[in-house]
């Protein structure tokens, strides 16, 4: 008897739940369609700021960048995507100095993990939002990031006197901490330093 009751109960509950499921899809049928029609909506397309598309090395109007050719990004890259070639030059005052010669980045091997950007001590590189990256040959994926004839930006002492020791701290600190700033320092421009610094100081204390 009990089994008969469960049989009919199951039947009616089944019918009810089926009708409920169909009502859900019926509503879905009339919802606004969210598909982006890509080439047509190029003008209005919004790409999230956090989206990592292409590694770039920002240059200012004087064709200067911030890369000191230290090679930390190259060492931190898990795939060996980055290749930093440096050159030695002699400055006016007779000192020998290492400067950047070519900075190549192979997009085909990049996993866009952002480690290079996080670890860069001088915030010379960043990911931009330029997402249309398709090319016809694989060799075109290998890009040279520093512009022709560019040189290292001279440091202005008054902007951030404390920035250098902090960066060193970060490098010597343990590797787990490196994951943490991932969210905050999406695009590290020099102006971001003011946000980043208090955080680093707290971890230090």
């Amino acid at each position, binding site marked *: 008897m009990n089994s008969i009751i469960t*049989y009919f109960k199951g*039947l009616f509950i089944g019918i009810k739940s*089926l009708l409920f*499921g*169909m009502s*859900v*899809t*019926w509503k*879905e*049928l009339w*919802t*606004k*369609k*969210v*598909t982006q*029609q890509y080439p047509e909506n190029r003008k209005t397309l919004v790409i999230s700021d956090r989206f990592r598309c292409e590694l770039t090395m920002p240059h200012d109007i004087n064709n200067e960048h911030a890369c000191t050719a230290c090679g930390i990004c190259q060492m931190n890259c898990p795939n060996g995507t980055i290749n930093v070639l440096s050159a030695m030059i002699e400055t006016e005052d007779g000192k020998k100095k290492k400067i950047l010669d070519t900075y190549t980045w192979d997009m085909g091997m990049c996993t866009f993990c952002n480690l290079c950007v996080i670890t860069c001590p001088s915030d010379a590189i960043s990911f931009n939002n330029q997402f249309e990256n398709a090319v016809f040959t694989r060799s075109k994926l290998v890009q040279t990031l520093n512009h022709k004839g560019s040189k290292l930006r001279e440091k202005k002492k008054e902007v951030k006197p404390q920035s250098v020791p902090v960066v060193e701290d970060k490098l010597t600190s343990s590797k787990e901490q490196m994951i943490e700033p991932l969210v905050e320092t999406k695009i590290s421009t020099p102006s971001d330093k003011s946000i980043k610094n208090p955080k680093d100081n707290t971890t230090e204390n």
Partner: protein
Amino acid sequence: MLQPLELTNLLSWLDTTLRDSMPVFWVLLIEFVLVAVALLAAYAILAIILIYAERKITAFFQARFGPNRVGIYGILQSIADVIKILLKEIIRINNVDRFLFFAAPFFMIVASMLTFGAIPFGKMLHAIDFNIGVLYVTAVSSLGIIGVLLAGWSSNNKYSMIGAMRSGAQFVSYELSAGFALMTIVVLTGTMSFSEMIAKQEFCWNIFNGHISSIIAFVIYLISGHAETNRGPFDLPEAESELTAGYHTEYSGLQFGFFYLAEYLNMFIIASIATTVFLGGWMPIQIPGLDGFNQVMWYIPSYAWFFGKTGVLIFLSLWVRWSFPRLRIDQLLNLEWKYLLPINLVNILIMVILVLAGLTLTDLFPVLAP
């Protein structure tokens, strides 16, 4: 009655002019060729329309646009698909049973074509009209399962084999329910011929005529018909996440296309049989006594009524398909053998009682009888 858009006048005019000008043999030959061409054209065009409609409606159920690149609103998409599938290589697989591998698509297409030919598309648009119409349709459509089983067997592929076995078990199970559901209506109308059935539904569709019993039969027929076509929540034989493509995994190019074609046409056939048996077929909506209204309804040609009703049922099938997750095989067989079949047997007896006690609508209100 004035019926300006019907094809009946055209057809009878064609027949008489042919008969006047040449011997009977040639007339018959020409008419047969015309029937064949019409069927082929209808088959192909319906397949193209159905594929487009399915893709578009599916997209809307999933909050996206669907095909909209090839032609305006993507209407040329399925034509492009047809051309593509014709240009695809038919790959020769090692270790298959070549004769059966080749023969399987024939079973699929011939079964669906023989069923397709028995559908009354409109007034006089009816190729095969046996007096056992309903039984003929259930019998012939069961040939398709042979195609599925042979395809699965001959491929010598484990996925295909399992898919075919599941499909066989599923098809034979649900074939029973479909047959019994149609039998309920045969009890009600007392005829198995499609044309007589339609004639009896002039003022009162069968689904209303046998009220409770008819509606149960209708729902059961839709469920089991849907299951027979291996679609929607019942697509275990080709469950792509576990069996790749089921019984037609090894088929490529147009040979695969035939399976695809037969699947879509079977969807249409199930919907159109349900239309004919339960919803009055090509008969327009008629209300006894309101001659003016009936006349207006007749201005809409009968084939438009037929395709309209069938289209609604196809939409229902797509709606179900995109609403529910796939069943497990034990759930599938339970649904048939523990729920649908016993309910069906009881339902037939209820219908017999309704008929004998004079409780059907046409018995209660004789004005509804044709």
